[in-house]
């Protein structure tokens, strides 16, 4: 499988602070990569750099063979990179249908009018929001808004979908639903990069996991290897715990 997204030495500085430091990572086509790390590790910043919201201070981002390091967000969107937001950002004054139609039109390249509307309905059915299509986006519950984010992401006809904490604020049943959705999306051939806190989600969903800590990539690999990696344990639970665990596991 070829690499769809390649990050080489990506660094992002804010003033003197390095939010992302020298990250080199490849995401293969069709895989589901988990991105984990303690709060403030730089995960969202990395996604912002990929999508063009913040330009990289150093390093390169290549997508489908093209250098997109300096590409503006709307162009990255049209190239096939879609993302959801940790704090959901619908267009509050517009209906659910219009929200998804916007995504279809501007990123997905569907023409204005009936075509966009129909396609939007399709995506809404896929995520289970068809009944609320005409409701104002601001009137939705949190769980439904998260599903709206999914629908918008899908409407963008992405090659790569970046999911940022889609499960924050959801209860267990809602998390399971979201999980099923992500699996279905991945089954369609969309490459997924998922930022996640819930280990059960990451472990069951991802073929590989990348770990960020203080902006640096400290580990990449299969789920089982990652959870036993002493550096990872140290990052989450501290040096002493890691040492004690190392002692336990030899």
């Amino acid at each position, binding site marked *: 499988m070829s690499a769809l997204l390649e990050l080489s030495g990506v660094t992002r500085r804010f003033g003197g602070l390095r939010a992302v430091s020298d990250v080199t990572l490849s995401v293969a086509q069709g895989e589901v990569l988990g991105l984990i790390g303690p709060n403030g590790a730089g995960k969202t910043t990395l996604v912002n750099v990929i999508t063009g919201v913040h330009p990289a201070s150093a390093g390169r981002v290549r997508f489908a063979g093209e250098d997109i390091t300096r590409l*503006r967000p709307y162009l990255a969107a049209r190239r096939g990179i879609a993302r959801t937001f940790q704090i959901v950002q619908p*267009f509050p004054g517009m209906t659910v249908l219009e929200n998804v139609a916007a995504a279809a*039109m*501007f*990123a997905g390249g569907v023409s*204005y009018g009936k075509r966009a*509307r129909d396609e939007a309905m399709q995506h809404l059915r896929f995520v289970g929001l068809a009944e609320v299509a005409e409701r104002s986006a601001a009137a939705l519950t949190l769980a439904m808004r998260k599903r709206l984010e999914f629908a918008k992401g899908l409407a*963008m006809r992405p090659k790569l979908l970046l999911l940022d904490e889609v499960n924050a604020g959801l209860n267990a049943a809602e998390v399971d639903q979201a999980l099923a959705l992500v699996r279905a999306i991945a089954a369609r051939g969309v490459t997924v990069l998922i930022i996640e806190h819930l280990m059960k989600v990451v472990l069951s969903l991802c073929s590989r996991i990348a770990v960020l800590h203080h902006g640096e990539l400290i580990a990449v690999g299969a789920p089982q290897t990652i959870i036993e990696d002493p550096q990872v344990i140290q990052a989450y639970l501290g040096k002493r715990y890691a040492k004690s665990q190392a002692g336990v596991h030899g």
Partner: protein
Amino acid sequence: MKRDAWIAVLLFALVALLPLSGEAYWMRLGTTMLMYGVLAMSWNFIGGMAGYPSFAVAAFFGLGAYTGAVAQKFGMPMGFAWAGAGLLALAFAALLGLALLRLRGHYFAIASLVVAEVLRELVNSMTGLTGGGMGLNLPIPAMASVDIQARFFFYAMLLLAAVTFAAMLLTANSKLGFGLRCIQQNESAADMLGVDTTLYKVSAFMLSGVFVGVAGAVYASWVYYIEPPDVFDVLYSVKAIVMVLLGGAGSMFGPLIGAAAFLSLEELVWRNYLQVHTGVLGLMIVLLVLFLPKGLLSLSQRLGRRKMP
């Protein structure tokens, strides 16, 4: 959209009957109302649909007025002068938009307000071309009678207003209009969804300038004497905004209704409170802003709202 189009045709047809009254006063009022309508509808492109608080109407108006006037002074026929004014306003809006539209909120508002002042000063100092502070006299249009002249300008403004309305209607029901709504709701989200925000905002700004520019040129020909503080008056910008606020949001006809309502109030004030008319105008503005129904206060949610066809 079809329904709105038919209502508009009816409305404009009715207004077109006004000159039959034969009263010069009503025609003057009607022409002014149509001009105000153009200003209000134009502002709606950038202020209502895109959500950028522009105070640039005065700049475009004055620019159009002087472009048209100077062109006519050099012998250009009126119609061409007007078209030229529109084109210059369009180009100016494009350049200005590219420069200013990366600012948001207050900064954008102030910058757009300041542009009119700068233009006024510039025009003031170019005494050779524009007559500077002494004003500019235009060639008086050669028409059969005063009445014919009044009708001519009335119909000219009517045509301009109709064109502006058509542009507004078409934009609102197009991908551009939809994109502008997205920008107004949440610009960075729109950007992430693939909307070329710069292109769309500048387009809206250009639309907000071109018809105002032509209106300025028509106005100049109509009154055949202009001076800088007269046509670069920031009050034009404020009036455009107030008219849209007054007419209500959410309907294509809001700006026109607002223009009609505002003009009526203004005429009442002019006739009865000549000495204090700016003060009373100010009071009107204050009352409008303070007592708009609660719903309209969340302006950003409501203005320019349009369902997809």
